[in-house]
C-alpha cells in the first residue's frame, strides 16, 4: 500500500463517489447548496427592514392588487404589497427551520423508542408499539388545529404538531431494522463478550440501522415543508405577512388566475413561492434517492 489513508476517510470517499456518480444527486446537492447559501446570507441578500423581526416581509402600501416585477421589487409584490423577493429569501430560512426542527425531533424520538422497543422486545416492545399505534390514530390536521385553537396561531405550533406525529414513522422503520439486526451473529458475539446492552445498541446496532433513517429524514425534510406550507395556506400556520412560502401562496390565492383577458397576469405571485417549495422538496428528494442508491446493500461492494 502506497499511501496509508485513514480507512474511515477512504470509506467516506468511496461512499461520496458512489453518491456523486448519480446525476440526480448532483442536481439535488447543487440545489441544496444554493438554498443553504441563500439561507445563510439572507441578511446580506435581502436586508431586513424590521430589526426586531426579520421574518416579517416589508410592504409598501396596502393595495390588494399585486405589482409585477420591476424596479425596487425584483420579483414584484404580492397581495398587500409584500415584497416577494424578500419573502422568498427569508422563507428559505423558515423552510430549513421547519425541516430541521421537525425531522430532528421526530428522528430522535423515533429512533430512541424504536431502538429500545426492537432490541428488548417482549413487554417493553408491546407497550411502546401500542402507544405508537395510538399515535397513528391521530390525524395530523386535527392535531394541528387543536394545538392552534389552544395556544394560538403560529408556525412554531405547527412545527410542534408535526413533530408530535412524525416520529411514529421512524419508530416503525428503525424497529424493523433492529429486529433483523438483533439476531445477527455480530450482536450475539458482542453479547458473549459481555458488552452491555446500551453499548451494543449504540456501537453495533444503530450504526448499521441508521441508513434507512437517513434516507427517510432527507425525504421528510422536503415533505415537512410541504405540509407546513399547506397548514399556512389553510390559515393554521404563519400569520399574514410572515415570510413563509406557504403563507405567500395563501396571500396570492385570489390571484392564481388573473382577469379573463390575461389569466397569467399575476403568475409571479404563485410561481415564485410555489417554485421555491417545489425546488426545495425536489432537492431533498433527489438527495434521498441518491442516498438510497448509495446505501443499497445489494450493490454495495462486498
Amino acid at each position, binding site marked *: 500500500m502506497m499511501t496509508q489513508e485513514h480507512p*474511515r476517510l477512504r470509506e467516506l470517499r468511496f461512499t461520496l463517489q458512489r453518491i456523486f456518480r448519480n446525476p440526480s444527486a448532483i442536481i439535488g446537492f447543487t440545489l441544496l447548496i444554493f438554498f443553504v447559501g441563500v439561507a445563510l446570507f439572507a441578511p446580506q441578500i435581502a436586508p431586513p427592514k424590521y430589526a426586531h423581526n426579520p421574518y416579517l416581509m416589508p410592504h409598501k402600501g396596502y393595495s390588494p392588487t399585486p405589482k409585477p416585477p420591476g424596479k425596487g421589487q425584483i420579483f414584484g409584490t404580492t397581495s398587500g404589497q409584500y415584497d416577494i423577493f424578500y419573502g422568498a429569501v427569508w422563507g428559505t430560512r423558515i423552510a430549513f427551520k421547519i425541516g430541521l426542527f421537525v425531522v430532528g425531533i421526530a428522528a430522535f424520538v423515533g429512533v430512541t423508542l424504536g431502538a429500545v422497543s426492537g432490541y428488548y422486545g417482549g413487554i417493553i416492545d408491546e407497550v411502546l408499539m401500542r402507544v405508537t399505534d395510538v399515535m397513528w390514530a391521530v390525524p395530523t390536521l386535527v392535531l394541528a388545529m387543536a394545538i392552534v385553537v389552544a395556544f394560538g396561531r403560529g408556525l412554531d405550533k405547527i412545527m410542534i404538531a408535526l413533530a408530535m406525529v412524525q416520529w411514529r414513522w421512524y419508530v416503525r422503520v428503525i424497529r424493523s431494522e433492529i429486529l433483523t439486526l438483533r439476531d445477527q451473529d455480530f450482536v*450475539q*458475539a458482542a*453479547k*458473549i*463478550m*459481555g458488552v452491555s446492552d446500551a453499548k451494543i445498541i449504540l456501537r*453495533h446496532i444503530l*450504526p*448499521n440501522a441508521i441508513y434507512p433513517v437517513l434516507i427517510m429524514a432527507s425525504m421528510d425534510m422536503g415533505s415537512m415543508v410541504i405540509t407546513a406550507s399547506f397548514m399556512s395556506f389553510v390559515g393554521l400556520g404563519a400569520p399574514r405577512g410572515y415570510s413563509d412560502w406557504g403563507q405567500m401562496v395563501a396571500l396570492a390565492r385570489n390571484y392564481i388566475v388573473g382577469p379573463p383577458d390575461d389569466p397569467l397576469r399575476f403568475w409571479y405571485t404563485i410561481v415564485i413561492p410555489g417554485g421555491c417549495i417545489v425546488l426545495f422538496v425536489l432537492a431533498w428528494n433527489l438527495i434521498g434517492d441518491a442516498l438510497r442508491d448509495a446505501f443499497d446493500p445489494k450493490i454495495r461492494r462486498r
Partner: protein
Amino acid sequence: MEKILELRELKKHYPILGGVLRREVNSVKALDGVDLDIYRGECLGVVGESGCGKTTAGKTIIRLHDPTSGMVYYYRKDKGPEVRIDIGSKKGSTLKKLGIRGKLQMVFQDPTTSLDPRMLVKHIIAEPIKEQVSLGGRELEHRVVRLLGLVGLTRDHLLRYPHEFSGGQRQRIAVARAIATDPEFIVLDEPTSALDVSVQSQILNLLKSLQETLNLTYLFVTHHLLVVKYMSHRTAVMYLGKIVEIARTEDIFSQSAHPYTHALLSGIPVPDVEHKQRRIVLSGDVPSPVNPPPGCRFHPRCPFTVDRCRDEEPPLEGVEAAHKAACHRKSEVEKLVRDRFGTHAQ
C-alpha cells in the same frame, strides 16, 4: 482427565405462542435433556442434521441462551482451588462480574455476519479486551497485533474493514476475537462450512495449533462428519434434541452402536473413488421437534425398529466405559447393519 463443563438434564424449549392472548401453546424442544461432560483440553465434536439442536446446545452452554431447565456446571480453576459453579442459572451480568464471561467464547459459522461491517478490525478485536481490562491505547494495540499474529495476520490488517478481507481471513479475525479474552472453552459453530474447500483446511489447522498452544477446550459443532473426524477427540451424535451416541471419534467411525450414526456415516459423500461404500438411505425426514415421536425418537426412520422402540425411550448407556449409546439394540446394531447393508466399508 479433569472436567471443565458438566451438563445435567439440560433443556432448552422455544415457546410457540398462539391464540389471541399470545399464550404458550406448545414448544420447540431444541434441547431435550442433555447430559454431557466436557474435559479440559479436548475437542468434542457434536454432529447431527439441521434442527437436531447442536447449535442450540453450543449457545446454551456458553449462556447466549438461557436454559429452560437443567444445570450447566463450570469447573473454575484460574483463581485458587477448583470450584464448581452452576452457570446455567446465573444472569449475564453476574457471569461478567465473576469473570467467567471471557472464559467461554464462540466462533460463529459465517464470518460475514459475525463481524460488525462498520467496525475496523482493530476495534473488533479490541472490544472484548476492553470489556475485561482497561488498557492504554498503545498496550491495547500491542495486544491486538499479537492476537492477529497468532491467527496469521499482520499489523497491516489493523485498519481495515471486514469486507476488505476474503472469507478465510475474516474467519481468522473472528477466531482472534474469540481468543482475545484468554478463554478456556470455545464453541466452534460450523466454523468452516461457509468457507471454500481450500481455505477450510487452513482454518482447521489454525484451530488445531491454537488449541495446543493456548490449551483450549473446543466444542466443535458441525454437520460435516469428515471434519469432525479430523478435529475432535470425542464425538457426540445428536438427534432431535438428544445425544444418541457419544464415544471416542475412532470408535464412532469404526464401531458405532446406533443405527442413526451408521446412516449418517454412510451418507457422507466420500471424495474417494477407490473405496465405494454401501449406503444406508434413510426414508423420510427428521420429525418436527415440536412433537417428537414417543419412545425412541429415531424409531420412525430406523430400519431395525422393534416394538420396544415405540414405547420405551432408550437411556444413554455405556457400551463400553467411554462409549455410550441410546439404543435398545445397541449390542447387535453392528451385526444388523452388516446383514442388511453389507460390510460397512472404511
